[in-house]
């Protein structure tokens, strides 16, 4: 029996029809909080309109009048790290009896800051100093002349970044300084986290909870924290609780003579704990290959059996190197320690701020063994372990929709396997996957990416820009749209080197074109003609039409390389909007930011 009378049930139906799952989940959280509040106070009215986080209807920017709760945690996050830290802080605040709102910068109207009293900002930096897409508007608003004075605001910033980039933690740094400039009161000094964020993020969370309790006390009423709830009873497999999944298929999908080996991988997903959506990533835990570990042992002449205790856990050196530390990626701490230990002046020079770009370039082409080989030094086991980052799972965009492939998740994996100075180097995850046969088991989890979703309104058109393995989520998108019976058009812009060698999923795209499930396909193959042609060239070439699509409410998605492709595509889009929309470059940039703000321009770049 429904607790609602038919009229109210109908009103509820009207209210919730067309809402996407994320919004529905938000409402469930909101009404749960409302229930708790009414049970406590006996109040009758809702306070949605004047308070609390307004659920952001897709395509409509959020606005709200006054803060819903004494503490607001705003995060800007590209890969989900920022979101996770913000959510942990939210739980920490709640646990100490403080009402808090955790909100993505994309869902937060920057003007609202003037009404805030207590804000924590978790801001990641993307690529070389860029704000993450969801925080772009907030960043631009705050750094502009339009930003209001914020004399009544207290705040603290946690900056996330990657020290191999020259402008490490740039976004957080700028926001921190700017808020102070605008008159806000800094509660405590900003903390900058490197890729291995835990050592600094955990203490910061404690400090933030402590500061909030000190300032606000704990008398504030408890309310539901608006964090996504899943409708399923079982929690989603996560980084902390991965699941074993079985590999069903592993096919090379580039031609024999292609420059890269790219695999189409199919995983059997066990149950609803693996309910991913197209746009989500699948994380895969791996170990480093034995040969790579042995090479490190050999180069450092350390005893692999020696026991090493770091951060309270004790394992053999071999175990640390095999399953707990990164040896395929080089991080700044290693370079610093190596410079100290080897006394090498070149290394020390690289660490100078002005050499950051050079250093980062070197990082991208080298693994730990290369550095140890080129700069011999005396190591002790603990120092080595401490100089290395924790081994992180590798994330791959889901290349399928469950609505089409049922209990499977598909991945598109570029295999990293090359030689450097005569020695073989592999990416641990992609290499392990490349040699895995059906039946092999992987530890994996779902990394949700709520910002990268097909429009809930199926009648909207979408443009998908995804060269190389960046095309993976769009395979999922198209599958999803077909399964949903979405009537909107799908336009894919793909790029690669050679049409005949690395046109990923070519046969499938041709099939979807034929079936009118893909409505437009433009391709750019850089090495098929004398001039290098990339996706941004196609964007400019078809600018008039692309802009016409944008004007009709189309969503644009970009996935793939963050270093060069994403900025080039971004610039091309601005150019197209300026040219065909008769706007200044600045207005065109605003137009594009506006799209990002309403989630019609989303990027998943890495």
């Amino acid at each position: 029996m429904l607790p609602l009378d038919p009229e109210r049930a109908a009103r509820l139906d009207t209210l919730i029809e067309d809402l996407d799952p994320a919004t529905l989940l938000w409402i469930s959280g909101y009404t749960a909080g409302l229930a708790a509040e009414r049970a406590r106070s006996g109040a009758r009215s809702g306070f949605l309109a004047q308070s609390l986080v307004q659920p952001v209807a897709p395509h409509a920017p959020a606005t709200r009048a006054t803060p819903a709760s004494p503490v607001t945690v705003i995060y800007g996050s590209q890969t989900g790290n920022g979101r996770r830290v913000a959510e942990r802080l939210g739980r920490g605040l709640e646990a100490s009896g403080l009402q808090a709102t955790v909100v993505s910068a994309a869902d937060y109207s920057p003007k609202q800051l003037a009404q805030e009293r207590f804000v924590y900002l978790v801001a990641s930096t993307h690529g070389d100093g860029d704000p993450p897409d969801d925080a772009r508007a907030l960043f631009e608003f705050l750094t502009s002349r339009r930003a209001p004075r914020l004399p009544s605001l207290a705040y603290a910033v946690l900056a996330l970044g990657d020290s191999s980039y020259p402008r490490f933690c740039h976004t957080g740094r700028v926001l921190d300084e700017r808020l102070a400039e605008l008159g806000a009161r800094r509660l405590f000094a900003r903390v900058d986290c490197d890729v291995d964020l835990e050592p600094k993020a955990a203490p910061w969370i404690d400090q933030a909870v402590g500061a909030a309790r000190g300032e606000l006390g704990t008398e504030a009423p408890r309310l539901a924290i608006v964090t996504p709830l899943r409708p399923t009873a079982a929690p989603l497999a996560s980084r902390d609780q991965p699941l074993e999944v079985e590999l069903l298929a592993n096919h090379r999908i580039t031609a024999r003579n292609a420059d890269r080996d790219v695999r189409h991988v199919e995983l059997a997903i066990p149950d609803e704990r693996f309910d991913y959506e197209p746009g989500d990533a699948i994380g895969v835990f791996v170990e480093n290959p034995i040969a790579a570990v042995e090479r490190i042992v050999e180069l450092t002449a350390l005893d692999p059996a020696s026991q090493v205790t770091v951060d309270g856990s004790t394992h053999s050196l071999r175990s640390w190197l095999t399953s707990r530390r990164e040896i395929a990626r080089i991080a700044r701490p290693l370079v610093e320690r190596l410079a100290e230990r080897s006394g090498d002046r070149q290394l020390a020079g690289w660490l100078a701020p002005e050499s950051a770009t050079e250093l980062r370039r070197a990082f991208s082409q080298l693994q730990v063994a290369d550095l140890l080989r080129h700069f011999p030094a005396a190591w002790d086991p603990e120092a080595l372990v401490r100089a290395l980052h924790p081994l992180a799972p590798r994330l791959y965009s889901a290349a399928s929709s469950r609505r089409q492939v049922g209990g499977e998740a598909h991945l598109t994996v570029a295999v990293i396997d090359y030689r450097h100075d005569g020695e073989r180097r592999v990416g641990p995850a992609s290499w392990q996957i490349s040699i895995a046969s059906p039946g092999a088991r992987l530890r994996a989890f779902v990394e949700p990416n709520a910002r990268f979703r097909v429009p809930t309104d199926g009648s909207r058109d979408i443009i998908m820009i995804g060269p190389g393995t960046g095309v993976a989520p769009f395979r999922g998108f198209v599958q999803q749209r077909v399964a949903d019976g979405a009537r909107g058009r799908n336009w894919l812009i793909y790029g690669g080197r050679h049409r005949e060698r690395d046109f990923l999923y070519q046969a499938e795209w041709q099939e979807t074109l034929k079936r009118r499930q893909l409505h437009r396909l433009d391709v750019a193959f850089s090495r098929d003609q004398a001039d290098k042609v990339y996706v941004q060239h196609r964007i400019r070439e078809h600018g008039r039409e692309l802009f016409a699509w944008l004007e009709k409410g189309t969503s644009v998605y970009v996935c793939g390389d963050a270093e060069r492709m994403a900025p080039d595509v971004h610039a091309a889009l601005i150019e197209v909007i300026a040219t065909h929309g008769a706007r200044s470059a600045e207005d065109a940039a605003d137009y594009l930011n506006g799209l990002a703000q309403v989630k019609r321009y989303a990027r998943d770049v890495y």
Partner: protein
Amino acid sequence: MTELSAVEKIKAESRGLRGTLVDSLADPATGGLAESDTQLLRLHGSYQQDDRDIREQRRLQKLEPLWRFMVRLRLPGGVCTPAQWLAIDALARAHANGSLRLTTRQTFQLHGIAKGDLKPTLAALNAALVDTVATCGDVNRNVVASSNPVESPAHAEVAEWARRLSEHLLPRTRAYHEIWLDGEKLTGTPEVEPIYGNTYLPRKFKTAIAIPPSNDVDVFANDLGFIAIVEDGRLAGFNLTVGGGLGATHGDAATYPRLADVAGFLTPDRLLAVAEAVLTTQRDFGDRTNRKHARLKYTIADRGLAWFVAEVERRAECKLEPARPFAFTSNGDRFGWLRGFDGRWHRTLRIPAGRIVDRFDLPWLTGFREIAKVHTGDFRITPNQNAIIAGVDASARQAIDELISRFRLDATEHLSPLRRDALACVALPTCPLAMAEAERYLPQLLSRVEALLERHAISHVPLSLRITGCPNGCARPYLAEIGLIGKAAGRYNLHLGGDARGQRLAVLHRENLDEAAFLAELDGLLRAFASERADEERFGDFLWRTGRIRGPARA
């Protein structure tokens, strides 16, 4: 009325063979063409094919097949100048797979051309005064003519008739110029095809001219044929042959190879009118509902030769005279130097399977190129996939011989008669129709059969063996003494009993044999042949005489 075949609709809607070829060629998302354009492309002289060796691999790679194009040149009578040879050779190396394929219809095929290279290839050919118009598809294909060029003045005259016939029966659409040569684009309605109409022919149409005693063109395998009648050293006219064709479909009894009928005699001045009348009769009466029943041979078989001849006479506005006597002695080639009536020399070189390519120890592609640079006569491609260096002055022979020897083009000089006369179609990996290997398997097959001949001490006896990868018959296996017709990977139908003059069909002897089985079968028959052979008797004749094969198709 039964529905027209799908290809008929494509032709009718093609606006003079234009279709959407320009868009298809420009589409960067695929190395192939739109389905309907692949049909139209044929009439421009090219087939879309793929590398079948890696088709399955690419399917698993979720990549489309590795589309490539075969380009077939129009070379009436197989005549090619040294300048043309050099141009074709350059294209083979620049855009194709580095080889030239001489075909059983006296022309070159270039294989392995990528879509983007198609237009430059055709444009370069055009610059060398060669085209590919109507060499494939439902039109009159390359006209073949007995290739030994100048045994008499009549031979030169026949070669000229082959050229004129080919020109006369060409489609008139400007589509070829528009699409491949940047000619002016059509505005308004497409041009009228005076001979073909807008749906061209129901099916392919092959034309040959033979000069007895050589039947190297296998004139009876052609839809339309002319047997030159030379009287007192001058060309008196031609016997008309109609309704030949070798293609069949496995397991479909309604399809069959058929030898042409001799319909009568005509003087040379009637040649074009009669040819056109044969073609337009087939255009109007051929079956356009079933492509397996659409060749002229079925039209004649269904309606009768008398009806057909009357229709042709009415259209050509002339009466055929009674056929004149003729006699063929062979459908093979004569190798080595031959002297022509005018004192010039011609040397025929054996090219197994017609493949000219640089191999490590046999740099033939280079060899022919070097010869083309100094040669002042011309080249002739023979219907037996061989090449003639023709019109060499006596004084130039030595220089040519030195080049032949340096590039080992004489390596085939001492081959067994079996190896010298064998034919194979292209088949795998490029031909989409192939069901079994042919060209690639030929050398191994010949070694196995040679071993049998040696065992029975008959290696010196001429024996014609032809193998194809499918029953369409490109290498004319139905006319061989031993014909192997591919049925599946490693399996062939064994046909026996052709007469080596192209006048008697081989009959299906055993079906679906693997190599061991057909070699065992041949072993027994060759043993009998070796012991019971009459003087100079050929294997095909022997099989009939001794009743070891029997069938309906005796000539």
